[in-house]
């Protein structure tokens, strides 16, 4: 399967995407050692001033910007400038990478071995690689991969080494430094380490930003970081973090380079290594601290089959063209450029919008496997069963038929779906199911989620040592894992789904009312999903367009009408969002019913979890998924943003002050018990 036509060109509206090439194939056929030792001569930036990693450090320490900040800190704290300079130097030592080709070769060798056992294939779009190569020669390059696994950055460097492309320097969280040996290895393969938070530390910020900018401006190496800041545990893209993006855009905005190419990279895993780990973490089992021994314990993962990885190098985005007409660069004319200043509002909103655009570019090029469809269908079915009390699971043929229906819908919505067309659908389905046998099982011809561990545990059984709560949590692990696969495809019909839910919630079919309801939901969920700020109207139009195109919706001058054949689509779309709606509602209910005066932010998740478990066990809630701490945190963030909850700064920790009237009305609006108009009013 060297090259596969990934995408059928059925709709001219849909994007043309590149073909993939399996890079492991060659590894399986030739010597890894020779590969690791081969001649590596990447193309470099045309304006590169050749310099060593050590020279880089002195460039940073001698920079005007750092000089200025050192002087400032020294004046403010009364410390000697030399002292501060020393501290800066120490920060830099702690941070800096020391990229060594020998280490990279070592990784190239070991990773080849590891990857070959773990994965069936690693597919890369070679045209994207060529574009990247071109981009690297022309302007400094920033690589922005999606972040779903620890694997991501090793994988990136591995691919770039394989294709003879300049190795990136990678911004990594300090937590890796905990793993002594590994930390140093990563450092030598190009990682540099930054503290997770350094809010007020001027000096740290200054060293850090100057370091990144120096590498970028000189074209030393492509700079790589994760726009999402951390690994997404849910497989949904996370709201982008702006700090590093601000830093890498700065040299362009200040005219220090002609342009910067930003390359979004979408890495999609058929099976995520950390799958169960993430689910446990979100359910409150704390994440194990990164340690070397922990890594070895993780060795058992080596024996499993993790399917394939697809890595798509997107179209390089020129920062210059992004900023065209958005940013007036003259704003830097009147103050020396090395004096750090808060970015202007114009720049903040520009960077924010760009960040969203880039995350969406990552989303668009994520390859979706058939399993994503199956997981969506099985999850919906799972919850319907629970309520209807029918026989568990779906008949295999039924599942296949629905999957084919869903596949066609996905394609019409422009999803980057990797469904092998030359294989009969039933085979596609069964091979997907077998890869994910930890999550699903087939029994008596019915496919169901593997929620019951080791046979049926009946509540009344005397020998059961498992409490109902424990059972619930272990079921939730499976559900959340499945949900994370469903989430991979969420971005494809997020907008139509918001519209479908809005149609459901709105009191009439009037366009204006549906729009109000859409706008409310969109606003409510803008911490949950990637929704570009200020693009409500475009999103609404896009949703209408897609639903009309697929024949699910009729739009007249005044009204939006769901067609006969659209009922199924709309029902499917609505139930995609339902778990989220319920999650937000239950958080609201918790805040109204149980929140005390001095509820702190830290206590929030455990408290709300307890509340939810109680309700789930009582059968008052349908979706186990609402146990996800991610969802709970997002809904709190939304409520904070809307002003329904306020953070009160206290001595130790912020406490949460709940505006119960507002939270209540938001809950009712979410549940469709209150018209949107009023909720919008309440917000204002």
């Amino acid at each position, binding site marked *: 399967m060297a090259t596969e036509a990934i995408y059928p060109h059925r709709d001219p509206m849909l994007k043309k995407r590149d073909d993939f090439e399996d890079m492991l194939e060659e590894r399986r056929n030739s010597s890894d050692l020779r590969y690791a030792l081969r001649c590596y001569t990447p193309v470099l930036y045309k*304006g590169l001033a050749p310099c060593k990693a050590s020279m880089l450090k002195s460039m940073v320490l001698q920079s005007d910007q750092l000089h200025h900040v050192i002087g400032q800190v020294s004046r403010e704290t009364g410390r000697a400038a030399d002292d501060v300079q020393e501290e800066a130097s120490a920060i830099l030592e702690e941070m800096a990478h020391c990229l060594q080709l020998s280490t990279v070769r070592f990784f190239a060798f070991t990773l080849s071995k590891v990857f070959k056992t773990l994965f069936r294939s690693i597919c890369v779009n070679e045209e994207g690689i060529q574009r990247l190569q071109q981009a690297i020669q022309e302007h400094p390059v920033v690589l922005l991969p999606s972040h779903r696994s620890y694997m991501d950055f090793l994988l990136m460097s591995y691919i770039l080494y394989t294709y003879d492309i300049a190795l990136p320097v990678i911004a990594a969280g300090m937590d890796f430094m905990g793993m002594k040996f590994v930390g140093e290895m990563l450092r030598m393969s190009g990682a540099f380490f930054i503290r997770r938070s350094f809010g007020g530390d001027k000096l740290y910020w200054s060293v850090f930003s100057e370091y990144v900018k120096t590498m970028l401006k000189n074209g030393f190496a492509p700079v790589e970081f994760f726009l999402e800041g951390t690994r997404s545990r849910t497989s949904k893209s996370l709201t982008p973090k702006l700090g590093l993006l601000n830093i890498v855009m700065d040299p362009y905005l200040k*005219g*220090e380079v*002609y342009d910067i190419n930003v390359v979004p990279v979408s890495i999609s895993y058929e099976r995520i290594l950390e799958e169960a780990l993430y689910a446990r973490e979100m359910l409150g089992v704390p994440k194990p601290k990164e340690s070397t021994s922990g890594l070895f314990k993780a060795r058992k993962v080596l024996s499993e089959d993790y399917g394939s990885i697809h890595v798509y190098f997107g179209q390089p985005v020129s920062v210059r063209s992004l900023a065209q007409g958005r940013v007036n*660069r*003259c704003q*830097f*004319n009147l103050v020396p450029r090395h004096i750090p200043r808060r970015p202007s509002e114009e720049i903040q909103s520009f960077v924010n919008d760009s960040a969203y655009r880039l995350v969406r570019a990552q989303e668009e090029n994520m390859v979706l496997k058939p399993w994503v469809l199956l997981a969506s269908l099985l999850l919906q079915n799972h919850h319907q069963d629970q309520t209807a009390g029918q026989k568990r699971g779906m008949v295999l043929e039924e599942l296949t038929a629905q999957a084919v229906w869903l596949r066609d819908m996905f394609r019409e919505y422009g999803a980057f779906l990797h469904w092998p067309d030359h294989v009969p659908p039933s085979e596609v389905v069964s091979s997907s199911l077998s890869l994910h046998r930890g999550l699903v099982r087939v029994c008596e011809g019915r496919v169901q989620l593997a929620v019951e561990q080791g046979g049926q545990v009946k509540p009344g059984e005397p020998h059961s040592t498992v409490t109902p709560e424990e059972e619930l949590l272990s079921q939730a692990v499976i559900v959340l894992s499945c949900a994370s696969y469903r989430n991979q495809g969420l971005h494809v019909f997020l907008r139509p789904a918001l519209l479908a839910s809005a149609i459901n919630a709105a009191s009439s079919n009037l366009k204006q009312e549906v729009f109000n309801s859409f706008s409310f939901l969109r606003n409510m969920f803008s911490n949950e999903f990637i929704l570009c700020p200020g693009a409500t109207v475009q999103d609404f139009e896009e949703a209408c367009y897609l639903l009309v195109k697929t024949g699910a919706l009729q739009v007249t001058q005044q009204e939006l009408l769901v067609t006969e054949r659209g009922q199924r689509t709309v029902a499917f779309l609505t139930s995609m969002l339902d778990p989220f709606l319920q999650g937000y509602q239950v958080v609201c209910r918790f805040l109204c019913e149980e929140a005390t005066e001095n509820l702190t932010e830290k206590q929030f998740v455990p408290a709300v979890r307890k509340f939810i478990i109680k309700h789930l066990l009582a059968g008052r809630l349908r979706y186990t998924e609402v146990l996800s701490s991610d969802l709970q945190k997002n809904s709190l963030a939304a409520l904070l943003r809307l002003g329904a909850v306020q953070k009160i700064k206290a001595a130790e920790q912020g406490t949460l002050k709940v505006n119960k009237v507002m939270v209540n009305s938001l809950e009712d609006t979410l549940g469709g018990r209150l018209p949107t108009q009023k909720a919008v009013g309440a917000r204002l």
Partner: protein
Amino acid sequence: MLGNTSDRQRIAQQRLRIIAGHLQGPVDGDSAILAAECKAQGSKTDVCREGKTVPRRRQEIMKWNGWGYSDSKFLFNKKGQAEFTGKRYRLSGMIIPGLKDWMEGTFGANLQHKTPATPLLTSSAVQPATLNKAFLEELKSTGIPFSHDAEDRVFRAHGHCLHEIFALREGKFGRVPDMVVWPNCHNDVVKIVELACKHNVCVIPYGGGTSVSSALECPPEETRSIVSLDTSQMNRILWIDEKNLTAHVEAGIVGQDLERLLNESGYCTGHEPDSMEFSSLGGWVATRASGMKKNIYGNIEDLVIHIRMVTPRGVIEKSCQGPRMSTGPDIHHFIMGSEGTLGVVTEVTMKIRPMPEYQKYGSVVFPNFEQGVACLREVAKQRCAPASIRLMDNEQFKFGHALKPQVSSIFTSFLDGLKTFYITKFKGFDPNRLCVATLLFEGDREKVLQHEKQVYDIAAKFGGLAAGEDNGQRGYMLTFVIAYLRDLGMDYYVIGESFETSVPWDRVLDICRNVKARIIQECKDKGVQFPPLSTCRVTQTYDTGACVYFYFAFNYRGLSDPVHVYEQVEHAAREEILANGGSLSHHHGVGKLRKEWMRDTVSNVGVGMLKSVKDYVDPDNIFGNRNLL
């Protein structure tokens, strides 16, 4: 090679001769300085004007659709070699063997693909003159010469922007002045302006016609009769004051005449803009001109002691010649840079200096542009800049190289080869990255030599190698012939222009890189089929910044509207300059070409201030060229 002293002296005097020597035949010393009263002159306006470059009928010596003298131009001779005709310049009559290859290599130009200009000016293509009868009648009674001949009018309807010359070459004329008047002295101007006010006629002052800001373009919407007030006949030095070292000069005098006439008395102003052969003193004042040797002599605002300007409200001037005054905002600064919107500058008192005893060219090769800029910055920091110091980038260095005339001896070419070998092989300079600074020292012999050493020592710290006087001199010669070269390019599908800015030191490298890259990108985006020439030089240094000059040219074969493409690219380049902290203009001025950015440049209140001055001085917009605001 410049081995012996006599040769060196010859070279040292060469530049002065270039400046002074464009006219053939010995200059008659007596006619040089005329301190005569204007009235006495009135009756004999047509007496011979020996020693003066610019006649009333410019067409007698100058091209109507290109740069400079009719007898001087580049062409490819029958053998396909480039040659510069005439006898006026050092390069005149020489073969330039490298130019053809350079043009073909740089632009993809081809000698087979020609775009010849319309050979003759067809008077019938010129709009008929709209004459204001009453004004004409009264003007006749004053005896001031005037003309409404089509040729005369076309000559004064344009400067030297690319689009202006391109249109002329195609034989296209837009709105042109309806008549030309040649006042002979300050009083003539007073009379003309009075009449213009009385009869509501639009007056556009015209000096040397070297504007590159569309400043001389007649506003197409102007319905009144437009009178071009040509100051070229007001070209006398009225007196020289050796005690105070000042000279009082009529504003129509062109640079080369002013310099030559002063030289005859042993003085100079030292003001040498690149256009000094043709540009006039009044024009310098009106545009805030800058001269190449400003490091010693200053820019025009430093040189001017007193200005007399005729405005619709009357004559504006100061009452004394104190070297500096604290009398409110300096009214000279309303005049300097007013670009003909307020009145006509008629007489100027300028600083003069004794002629320098000794002049010496020099040049330094740097491994790259970055080092070169760092060196210039250091020189500026130590305030030891020579009379002129310019840093050409790699492309411009190659350009200068292509203009090397044919060498006569094998020995010279052998030595050239040896030098190249030394720099590129022995010193390891990359021929595609190295760049050259050209230097001009002036003053006492002793001091010059000392100064030279100081500068070369600084240069050495930045990896610079002294590269001989010849390279330096050729660099300056380029300045004078580059405008002629554009005409040659236009014969072969190549159009181009230069533009300038001033920028703080910390931005110099960034602006050079970004503007050059922007030009290349815009050309690509606009469908230019061949890679453009996009090059720059740092041409002046100041304490806090530098003046940067960009040259930009491309082969327009395959484009339907090359001038439009050119203008879009230039516009984009200017936006890039402004976005990189550069100024709207260092010395070319704003005119109509860069008007749109004035508000952003000087703020709303700034524009309001300038407007209110205009409204007071010229309420009826008699000086209606619509420059600046």
